[in-house]
């Protein structure tokens, strides 16, 4: 067996199982109790696990859940101007944007915005490239679907008010 030491030099040690065990170890039971005592000690320590799905994990702001579209609190419409940069940068080609003209000041809006969640790899590049801070990674990590069609999320599922995304938007500003 080869072991690599921190300094990078390797040294070889022979494995001779039988010869290596001392008497106490060979007695078997003492070792068993040693192991069990470690296990029992854990019972009285704080828990790391959740009783999912009864208890849900609240991810931190840096978490990259499914991407969503930000609805501006002031205007009440999505911030997205359908520039298609997210669709262009998306390495998995998950996003489809179809643009159209609007009377609003932003001139252009997404008539259709779809993310294929079977393609999305949660890389966050769409969020990074967006010039309008219009698509951000949410905290949502529960995605269930039973058909390919269902996995394509349209505007109905994507639009999310900015107030619900405060954490992430603040995090993004901080990291800029």
């Amino acid at each position, binding site marked *: 067996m080869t072991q690599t030491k921190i300094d990078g030099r390797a040294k070889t040690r022979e494995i001779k199982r039988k010869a290596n065990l001392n008497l106490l170890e060979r007695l078997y039971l003492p070792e068993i109790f040693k192991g069990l005592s470690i296990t029992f000690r854990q019972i009285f320590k704080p828990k790391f696990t959740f009783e999912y799905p009864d208890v849900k994990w609240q991810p931190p702001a840096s978490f990259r859940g499914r991407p969503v579209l930000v609805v501006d609190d002031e205007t009440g419409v999505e911030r997205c101007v359908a*520039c*298609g940069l997210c669709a*262009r940068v998306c390495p998995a080609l998950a996003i489809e944007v179809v643009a159209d003209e609007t009377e609003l000041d932003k*001139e252009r809006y997404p008539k259709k915005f779809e993310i294929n969640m079977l393609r999305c790899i949660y890389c966050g590049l769409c969020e990074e490239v967006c010039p309008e801070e219009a698509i951000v990674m949410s905290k949502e990590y529960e995605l269930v679907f039973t058909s390919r069609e269902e996995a394509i999320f349209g505007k109905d599922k994507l639009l999310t008010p900015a107030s619900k995304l405060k954490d992430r938007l603040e995090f993004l500003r901080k990291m800029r």
Partner: protein
Amino acid sequence: MAKITIDGKTVEVKDGLTILQAAQEIGIDIPHFCYHPALSIAGNCRMCLVEVEKMPKLAIACATRVIDGMVVYTQSEKVKKARQAVLEFILINHPLDCPICDEAGECKLQNYTYIYGPGHSRFEEEKAHKPKRVPLGPNIVLDVERCIMCSRCVRFFDEIVKDPQLTFTQRGDRVVLTTFPGKRVDNPYSMNIIDICPVGALTSKDFRFKERTWNMTAVESVCPGCARGCNVYLWVRNNQILRITPRVNLEVNRYWMCDYGRFTYKPVNSDDRIKNPMIKVNGELVETDWEIAVETAASILKSVKPDEVAVLGSAYATNEDNYLLQKFAKSVLKTKYVDFLRHVKDGDEDNFLIRADKTPNSYGAYLVGVRSNNGFGFNEIVEGLRTKKFKVVYVMDDDIVLNDEIYSLLDEVKVIVHATNKNKTVEKADVVFASASFAEKEGTFTNFEGRVQKINIAVLPKDYEPWMLYKPRKFGEVKPNTGEINKANLALSRLFKFGTQFDRWASGERRNVKPSWWVIMQVANKLGAKFTYASSSDVFKEISETIREFKGLSYDLIGDEGAMINKN
């Protein structure tokens, strides 16, 4: 001849060339906005500044003629600084519109800023604001903020179509491009200014905000709008044509095309397309498959004697379609009644591009043999219908119902028709073959001068997959980005390449349509002929062997630019 040195390269160029043109000849691109090869020199953008030895200041390459012994530097520190300064200056009042701007991706300003720009701006004040949605006429919307005052559009109207329609008012940062008071931009060639505008100031009302340039696949084709046959790109996304723009061909349309031609894609996308072959059952047309449609047509034709069938080719169809049709008529159906309809709009012609003949291939149809042999033309066919001489009328890719009389005369005969869209002839048909439109097939058109030009598949019919059309780029073929926009490099968008059947964007409508030559071959073979063409190029090969005017031509020779027929 003048011997000049540009960036250390010494070359001999013609006298009278400008530095910019001389540099282009040896493959050095000098960035420029206002210079356009077809327009006069304006020299107002200053983007093309270069350093010339023994000249005290930088000179604009677009307006400085070469002199023997000239030594030019296009990459020196001084030039780089000047370019940065010019770009910073232009961008002072240029809006940050790239994300919503239709020009992005093919924008000179965007590309040059990326390549030559300073990377930052020292301008912290408020930018000048100007009107952003100014309708200039039926087809064009102007965004004044984006205009960089290069005057290309103004010069286009003054010099190319000689119909001044635009001008500048005010000065400095208040300058505004505008029409003359009370006038609109309505010249039949007006939309060319959208293409030559180096930025996104002029946008097409039809295409505005439809799609980003890089998401579309640009396919070389020929405009089917008139007998000129302007070279064009068809821009496709989701198997739908979204716009048509001119493709440079100095022999045919130079840099331009007419506004009418830009809308010739509408019928291809239209709702009245015939998507499957149809046959008449109990007086109703019902969709069927190709096997049954061909079978039905063959059984109709089997029973008729020679000269009981009239055959009509089409000036909208390709040389290949028409050639096979006349061969089928003469050798299989053995009829003398072969002709095609002309669609000439007298008076609707000018000495620039637009031709009165509103079809792309009337010359070609005539040359390959779809022509009336004295006394067996269209008029005689109508006369024959009146005297009930015919049992069957076979129409390819045209609507022969010119008036009510013909409409009712068609009741007396069986009608077999190839059609792309529903029309009056289709209403009377017993068999309808769903025909591929000019964007769904390969083939050639012969324009009024006798130039044979190739059309290609841009919209995929049902039996085609994207990979069948791939022309993969070779490694090392990608040219460095000079800021010049090479449309051919945009061909094959990423979406088109990597879409699967499960992606909605890759599953645009596919119609069960076929090119007419293929259909004719099936029908002919059912009637005992032995046609064995695997593709339209096989048909063209036979044309080049049998038709004198086409001798020696091939798809390779025609290429992107077209080739002339032999006239002598």
